[in-house]
């Protein structure tokens, strides 16, 4: 599928937790539908206004019937600050859906762990929605520094939800990897900070689980043209986060 560019109408843009916002937009008719793990390049400012680059944000939820596309994002810098300022009725430009989504069919009939860390939970809600009908069982394991967000949204799609916080403010005090009993699963999907993904993926791979990770990268185009988001695999091969990923088999990086 080739990415397209369009203008979308903002329906809601509200704070979900400290520095974490949820934005729902209307994806115009005719635009290709996203799948879990895909992302869009978002821009709510002129091509001649800073910051120069648009911002890649993953699909948090896609409601086909209403064509409502939801993004969950962390306000971190100038770009996301401008996104945070959008109100109902504002317009923003979207380029996408970009990247390869999670391989959902891989979960058919399997016991699945969806493992998220912090804002890494963003692409996992749509994943849970797509995996739920095909998997034997889906559990959600989430780790946060302190404040917990969006966990409730996973309830309709997950048999069990386990939460850890670094501070112990909610759930188990510790890391999300402390929640992971690899014997209970056949397959894991992971998204979160690099160190968390590495630790979780290594645990899964060591236990023989099939495992997929969703990587983050600084990118200019999101289309595979700029090669700004290239990173090296375990074997030293250059791969593009945007076009070859953002979802990769865990062994590609952590094998």
């Amino acid at each position, binding site marked *: 599928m080739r990415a397209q560019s369009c203008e979308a109408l903002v329906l809601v843009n509200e704070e979900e937790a400290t520095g974490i916002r949820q934005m729902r937009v209307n994806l115009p008719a005719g635009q290709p539908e996203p799948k879990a793990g895909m992302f869009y390049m978002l821009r709510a400012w002129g*091509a001649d206004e800073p910051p*120069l*680059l648009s911002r890649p944000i993953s699909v948090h939820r896609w409601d086909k019937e209403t064509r409502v596309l939801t993004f969950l994002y962390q306000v971190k810098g100038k770009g996301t600050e401008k996104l945070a300022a959008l109100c109902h009725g504002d317009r923003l430009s979207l380029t996408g859906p970009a990247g390869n989504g999670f391989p959902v069919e891989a979960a058919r009939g399997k016991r699945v762990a969806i493992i998220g860390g912090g804002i890494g939970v963003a692409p996992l809600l749509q994943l849970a929605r797509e995996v739920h009908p095909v998997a034997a069982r889906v559990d959600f394991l989430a780790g946060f520094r302190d404040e917990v967000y969006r966990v409730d949204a996973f309830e309709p799609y997950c048999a069990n939800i386990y939460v850890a916080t670094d501070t112990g403010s909610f759930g188990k005090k510790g890391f999300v990897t402390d929640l992971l009993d690899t014997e209970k699963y056949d397959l894991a999907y992971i998204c979160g900070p690099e160190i968390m993904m590495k630790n979780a993926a290594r645990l899964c791979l060591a236990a023989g689980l099939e495992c997929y990770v969703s990587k983050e990268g600084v990118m*200019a185009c999101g289309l595979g*043209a700029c090669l700004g988001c290239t990173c090296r695999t375990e074997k030293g091969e250059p791969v593009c986060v945007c076009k070859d990923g953002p979802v990769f088999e865990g062994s590609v990086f952590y094998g």
Partner: protein
Amino acid sequence: MADLRVDLCGKELRTPVIGASGTYGFGGEFSGIVDMNWVGAVSGKGLTLEGKAGNTGVRLYETPSGLINSIGLQNPGVRHFIEHELPAMRALGPAVMANLGGSTIETYEEGARLLDATDVDFIELNISCPNVKAGGIAYGVKAASAHEVVSRVRKCTSKPLIVKLSPNAENITEMALACEDAGADGLSLVNTFQAMAIDLETRRPVFDNVFAGLSGPAIRPIALRMVYQVCKAVNVPVVGLGGIATARDALEFILAGAAAVQIGTANFANPRACEDVARGIAAWMDAHGVKTLDEIRGAAL
């Protein structure tokens, strides 16, 4: 309706707007977004004889109205390009410009020979990549070195040969004259300006290579000045580039004498930039009663 067609080194482009090397992939990446009928040519990702994995570490860094990149000529190599990328690039519609870099004169020559045997429309000789020591910048600073590499490559191809100049050249006019004298059919300028950034937390340079290349609107007025100087000095066609983002910007370069323009970094801020610029030029021409760009090219000289 304005006639956007331009002649570049004897080849007709349907518009004067070219997707710049390194920002447009091999064109197909933008084909779902841009109406390629508005794109005159695509200059593909910079090629080297053998493929390159590119640079390690940070590759992109935003500045006020600019972008510093340290990609490092990551590319699949000339042979891979010819076999796997060129057919689809050819089928897109715009003229095909193969951008060729090199580490030694011999690799430039071999790359040019291979490309000469294909149906690419132009070879854009990159003697200006600032991110790889072996990427040609060595030849892009001193006019005498540029003269040698261009002369040697000239003997390897009968394709229209456009030499892409670096703004880091010691003297841009002397550089342009040297390339013209060596047999270049055209010149394109400017590539990125050597730049850097420092991380306050680590107190170290942001880029593994320390220096990297600055592009975007920040460099546009300097690029325009250099294009103007070169157009005054040479008789071969000049392709202007450097921070062009709008039709207005492109028209400035054409008034400075450019035969065509390339759009680079602007494709990142607006993936439809090439189409928007071409449409904008047509609209301006219609509004000003200009039928072809020949009527206004170089008016500012």
